[in-house]
């Protein structure tokens, strides 16, 4: 009987988990032409990818946007969580409102941000003009486009991560703070010396989650270019996920796309490992 109860999940796992993974490997070792024919090519697709400037461009874009988005997001989420952990009125309402971005649809919000970042009439350029900043063409240039996309990602996820951090903070025993206060530690010191180190398990969860999400980024940059997976006229914000869709479903080069999918997986593993090591060091000096 127990097997019958878990079997629906594992049948689905076989059909939509194991089968696609195994066949992605199979496809990645073959060359496909537009007519549907295929031939064995061994590691040929992987070799071509590693020599393909467009692929490396997508890798650099993905990592660049990930870093620009994630570093400020983690810091903001931490400080926001610390603020949310205080006593104040309308606590639930404020916690709910920082989660509001999460429950809105990604594409809808990306459309709104794209309009906010429009060159000639966008609100962002208008506000910046008050400070004498020259008109920025957010979509046409590499770094500005990364920043624009990073703000979309951060808008969506900062509040969510703050709530997760908040949950972690609430498991830290209060007497630790009381003891520190008696010893004369300032609140700022308490944050760095108690909260941060005690929060490490939560931080690992949040960072790993952000790594998977950030390195598979697709919806925001695609919507930023009106639903086109080229990622700008020069591919300046094409991510690896967009590269895979372009190769597989715009140019129907299945083998190439499948090989890129495995390299994306490798990139995620490396990213997860690096971030795990970084977080483990935070606050863990002694």
């Amino acid at each position, binding site marked *: 009987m127990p097997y019958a*109860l878990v079997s629906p999940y594992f049948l689905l796992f076989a*059909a*939509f988990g194991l089968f*696609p993974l195994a066949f*992605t490997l199979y496809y990645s070792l073959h060359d496909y032409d537009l007519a549907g024919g295929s031939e064995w090519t061994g590691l040929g697709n992987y070799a071509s990818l590693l020599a393909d400037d467009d692929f490396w461009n997508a890798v650099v874009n993905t990592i660049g946007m990930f870093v620009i988005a994630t570093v400020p997001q983690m810091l903001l989420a931490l400080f926001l969580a610390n603020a949310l952990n205080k006593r104040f009125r309308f606590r639930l309402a404020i916690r709910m409102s920082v989660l509001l971005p999460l429950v809105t649809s990604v594409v809808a919000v990306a459309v709104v*941000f794209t309009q906010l970042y429009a060159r000639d009439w966008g609100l962002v350029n208008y506000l910046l003009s008050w400070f004498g900043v020259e008109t920025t063409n957010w979509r046409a240039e590499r770094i500005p486009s990364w920043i624009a996309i990073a703000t979309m990602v951060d808008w969506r996820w900062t509040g969510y991560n703050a709530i997760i951090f908040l949950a972690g903070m609430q498991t830290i025993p209060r007497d630790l703070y009381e003891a520190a206060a008696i010893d004369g530690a300032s609140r700022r010191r308490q944050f760095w010396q108690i909260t941060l180190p005690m929060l490490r398990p939560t931080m690992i969860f949040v960072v790993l989650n952000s790594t*998977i999400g950030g390195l598979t980024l697709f*919806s925001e940059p695609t919507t930023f270019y009106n639903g086109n997976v080229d990622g700008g006229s020069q591919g300046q914000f094409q991510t690896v996920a967009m590269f895979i869709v372009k190769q597989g479903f715009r140019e129907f080069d299945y083998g190439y796309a499948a090989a890129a999918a495995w390299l994306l997986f490798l990139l995620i593993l490396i990213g997860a490992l690096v971030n795990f090591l970084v977080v483990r060091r935070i606050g863990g000096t002694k």
Partner: protein
Amino acid sequence: MTNWSPTILTRVMLAIAVFLSAFPLYWMLVIASRTNADAVAVPPPFLPGGNLGENIIAVLNNEDAKFLLGLTNSFIVASVVTVSVVVISTLAGFSFANLQFKGKNVLLVLVLLTMAVPLQQMGVVPLYRLMVDLGWTGTLQAVILPYLLNGFGVFLMTQYTRQAVPMELVEAARVDGAATLRIWWNVVLPAVRPGMAVLGINTFMLMWNDFMWPLIVLTPDNPTVQIAITSLNARFSTNYTLIFAGTALSIIPLIAVFILFGRQIVGGLMEGAVKA
């Protein structure tokens, strides 16, 4: 002693956070209720106008966008996936939490592993070929099927059942001669309902938002709502009021869910985070 009341700085920070969280949505409403001339004016308009109803009707009546069909399709996809995932996960969670069987731990590790792999991105080529072979491209079942696999759901319900249904309760029911399925129905289900709610809300929102896979496997003739917005955006790229009215329509169901279940969403997230 420790002072937990907020400083001025904290209050200001919270106010800014609330403002920034709400602003893009407010902006959506501003543009959706204006005219196209207003939308590209410098300086931009800061207050809503009076054209919201008109713009919404224009979107719904736009033959190319198929917006109403998109909304309906998204509703079907999200509902079917939500119900299936909740049922499958609750059954498996009960089994993992309360029953003994050989290979249980290995299977549980397998579930955890599937959570770590972004399957929908990784397996996209074979999944697409599978749908082509089945002749299902452009259909809703092609969107639904890959998402019935949800490792997070099984994990969440296993954790939740462990905590909500003590083993003694299951054993007592068994001594009374209840069959396993009856125990599930009469003992487990009532106890794990809050966990099912959290999983259900999460899954619904995730599916409503899904973009990459529908973009690959569907055509603009039979879109989900996200694809409908994308078509609007591609075809009428400067018709901001039309597009924004569409985006506003697309988030109404999510906002409704949020207003109804916001407390559970916050609570569920915080509980889940501590257990994970």
